[in-house]
């Protein structure tokens, strides 16, 4: 034992992780965030109804993947920074700013954090926006984004089926199908599908149970 190896890419022993399927999709009226609800500790499902969609501001939310502890800590700090911004400037922070703070924190702490974030928000000027902040701490804007261990199974499906300016119902159906397939093929994704709709009308939360989204369970 000459030195202690710091293995950045892996979780600490016994840590709760979110092998996840998360996505966010812009549409005609705004943006929708979606996620499965499984949290695992090794092979044990620590929580089957987790809420991986976290509120940062009324109109800005994020999907978390990676280590539960790390992403919660980061989300707490970003929320603090955004609240401070709002208090000091008297106006709401933009989605891009929120994503930038995520990006900066994830980049600066990349040796000690395991966090993959999708940050999405709605504002009157820009409409719905989606940003991803993957493991290394970069930031990318997309029309839609998928992330987490379950996302690898639905890259093709999403590429083929995403259309810009979908209606609300089309987007919900698109996400429901995508996430149900991600859940179906990924062992560490599961549970219910949660969605958060951000539009000019405010926030709307949806939940879909396995009986509803899973074809095999349908009558």
């Amino acid at each position, binding site marked *: 034992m000459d030195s202690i190896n710091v293995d950045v890419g892996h979780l600490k*022993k016994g840590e*709760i992780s979110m092998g996840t399927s998360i996505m966010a999709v812009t549409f005609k009226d705004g943006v929708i965030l979606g996620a499965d609800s499984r949290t695992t500790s090794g092979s*044990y499902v620590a*929580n089957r109804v987790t809420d991986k969609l976290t509120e940062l501001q009324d109109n800005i939310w994020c999907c978390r993947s990676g*280590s*539960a502890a790390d992403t*919660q*800590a980061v989300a707490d700090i970003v929320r603090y920074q955004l609240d401070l911004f709002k208090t000091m400037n008297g106006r709401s922070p933009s989605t891009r700013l929120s994503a930038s703070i995520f990006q900066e924190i994830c980049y600066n702490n990349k040796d000690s954090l395991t966090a993959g974030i999708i940050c999405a928000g709605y504002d009157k000027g820009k409409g719905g926006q989606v940003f991803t902040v993957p493991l290394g701490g970069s930031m990318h804007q997309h029309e839609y984004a998928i992330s987490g261990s379950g996302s690898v199974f639905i890259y093709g499906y999403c590429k083929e089926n995403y259309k810009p300016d979908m209606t609300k119902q089309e987007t919900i159906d698109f996400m429901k199908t995508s996430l149900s397939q991600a859940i179906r093929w990924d062992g560490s994704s599961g549970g219910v599908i949660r969605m958060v709709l951000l539009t000019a009308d405010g926030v709307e939360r949806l939940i879909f149970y396995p009986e509803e989204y899973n074809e095999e369970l349908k009558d």
Partner: protein
Amino acid sequence: MPGLSFENFQRNEYLVNQAGFKPPRATSTGTTIVGCRFKDGVVIAADTRATTGPIVADKNCEKLHRISPKIWCAGAGTAADTEMVTQLIQSNLELHSMSLNREPRVVSAMQMLKQHLFKYQGQVGAYLIVAGVDPTGPHLFSIQAHGSTDIGYYMSLGSGSLAAIAVLERDWKQDLSKDEAMKLCATAIQAGIFNDLGSGSNVDMCVMEMGKDAQLYRSFMTPNVREKKQRNYKFARGTTAVLRQSVFDIVEVVKEEEIPVGSSDAMDVDH
């Protein structure tokens, strides 16, 4: 350095890795703890076995800790860590509520605990179920050693959590009554007691209800009462004959003399 001391880390590593010594094992609460919300309150429960490796270290330990009068927490993991961390947060929450002149909130306790545990990267091995009532209503959270938290209507933690969650998943329903919730938690803990080696002995329970004082039920259930011995092995007095007897004065008792305080003789100190 104040705080944790790492002074002996290298020595201990050497003793364990090269010199072949076995490190002492921490007493762990290989545990079953559960929490469950009901209509306007929340209840948590725990078993009472503490283990050191394969040995039962304490048959009736307390795993329910008070964080504030109406916020309680059940701890699994390293016994010392759960105990100390809740004590520290208890003090902090008290200071916080005195400073703000408000009743402490469950979310504050949860946030303090998660931030503290996050700092120690899971090395402080405390897995907690935090529950309580505050002016915003009843709350139930679980916290993992690395600092992640979950919300839920019912939850279980510890080595017996698998047995307990099975019971909770079977019997839990929305809007339980207080008695139903208590019964459900007790059944879940008993599943842990009987099916998990790390859990055993009795069921402790704490009920927190809106507008009422928290109620701690120590030994709410005692499913493992020791059987009374069938025979008494005590010898009756006089069984052994006294052959000879002699009494000695070992110490001679002298009456104490009082010396008035400030007497000069007694205070003579060499300069």
